[in-house]
């Protein structure tokens, strides 16, 4: 790490998780309102996280191991909101059955 890239890298890392949070939040809102438009907006936030990942990989002086790790996490983030939502619906359906 060098002085020039310290703060940009940290801020990009913060934006990386912020975009993931917005993706999860808006995805949940989209599913709640059953609105495709809102769900598409959620994917827009996920795309922004992808762009942030790209910037982190291409520009910052992080070691390659960490860059690969960030890419892997980016892929995992894609699955969390849909899986969580599906599980929530499944468990709450069980609640209504019982």
């Amino acid at each position, binding site marked *: 790490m060098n*002085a020039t890239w310290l703060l940009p890298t940290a801020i990009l890392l913060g934006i990386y998780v912020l975009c993931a949070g917005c993706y999860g939040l808006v995805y949940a809102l989209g599913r709640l309102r059953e609105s495709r438009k809102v769900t598409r907006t959620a994917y827009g936030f996920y795309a922004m996280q992808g762009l942030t990942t790209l910037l982190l990989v291409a520009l910052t002086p*992080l070691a390659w191991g960490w860059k690969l790790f960030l890419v892997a996490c980016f892929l995992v983030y894609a699955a*969390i909101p849909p899986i969580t939502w599906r599980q929530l619906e499944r468990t709450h359906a069980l609640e209504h059955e019982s």
Partner: protein
Amino acid sequence: MNQSKKLGVQYLTASIVMMGALLLFGLLASIFYLKYGFLLGKLDFNIVKQVHINALIIACLWGFMGAIYWFLPDELGIETVGIGLARLLFWVFVAAVAVVVVVFIFVQYGSSDESGMWLVNQGRKYVEAPRWAAVGIVAVFLTLAYNIFASVAKARKVTGIMGVLMTTMIPLIAVYLIAFPAPTNMSVDLYWWWWLVHMWVEATWELMIGCILALALMKLLGTSRKVVEIWLYLEVALVLGTGILGLGHHYFWIGTPQYWLSIGGIFSALEPLPLLGMVVHAIYDAGKHQMKTHNKPAFLWLIAEAFGNFIGAGIWGFMMTLPQINLYSHGTQWTVSHGHFAFYGAYITGIIAVAYMVAQESRGIREVQGNAWKWAFAGLNIGMVGMVGALLVSGMSEAFIGRALGGSTLDGFMASQSNSWFMQGMIARTGFGVIIVASYFILAWDLLTLGRRSEKLSPALATT
């Protein structure tokens, strides 16, 4: 109201009062950065900070204990076993904390031998309490564990939530024992000290608040036990999976082997993943219940818990958790910013939510009304976001000027402390601190007077 619930109210009241001390000493600590020589030689910064951070620990512990004693009889259907001893120890605990605070403020320093550690201060951050008080804390925890285990045995009912809570009590007590030895090797000392601090804050406390919020959700929203327990088990798996080895991010610069850089970086970077699931869950609950509840402040504080945890621990933590960044950010106001946001998001919000639930039920209020809670909610959250934002600006300035450009030299440190970005952040921090303290007083007033301004339950409903 039975004895256990009365004790729950006492602990939660004490927790809210201790939050007042926490905030007032925090505000006082912020003034040291604005006025050089402030209270110099009378009440130095290190003493004020010491009271501030120890008040945080005690406020959280009292909040957890209050919630546990409140929910325990409902969960098990019997009065808590050994409640007489627990009620006695509450007053002993409160008196001991008062004595420790007086010693911290007026005695301040002890001799550099065993007597100083037994009577004045053990000297390690967060566990400065003298040994006699630390022995007392162990006694209180053992009593709490006895109350829980004996009540479960008597009720012959081990629910999933109680299973997790009982399991949590064992490491909670075990890691606190690390507060007692005083190794002379600083690396060894810090290695084990982080076991205590990290395993409390990012493992056992997470599970305790998870159990408390599970019990709260069942009462507040009527969520079924089956659903709550499935998610609690999932949380246990994810929190422990990422949290335990996340300990490594504290081992970066204390003389431990280099492999901790990778372990700490990877596992702490994984910590936001379960928090994202919590955000989705919060939206699901809020939407499915259409925000309809008889206790809106409790509900909104629970939602704030999910978001605060994600932003404070997740976003703020991820910015500085990779070793390459942490090399520069470690020990600056940047860390302070993350610490404040994470503690507030993960614990303080949850305790306030439970305090509203307890106030409603204990006073037989049908629906929590009024505007005071809205002002307190808005003020505390806006104040906290503003304060951690200001601290982040100061911290980034410190890391950039003092560490990255200044090479962590004394000159670099001095340059960073007098830089205008740093100073403006410090001024803004104090300003937002005033908003937080003012909002706290509204919160305390609201909790204190809640039943007087709201519609009471009919006697028949109040007794059910």
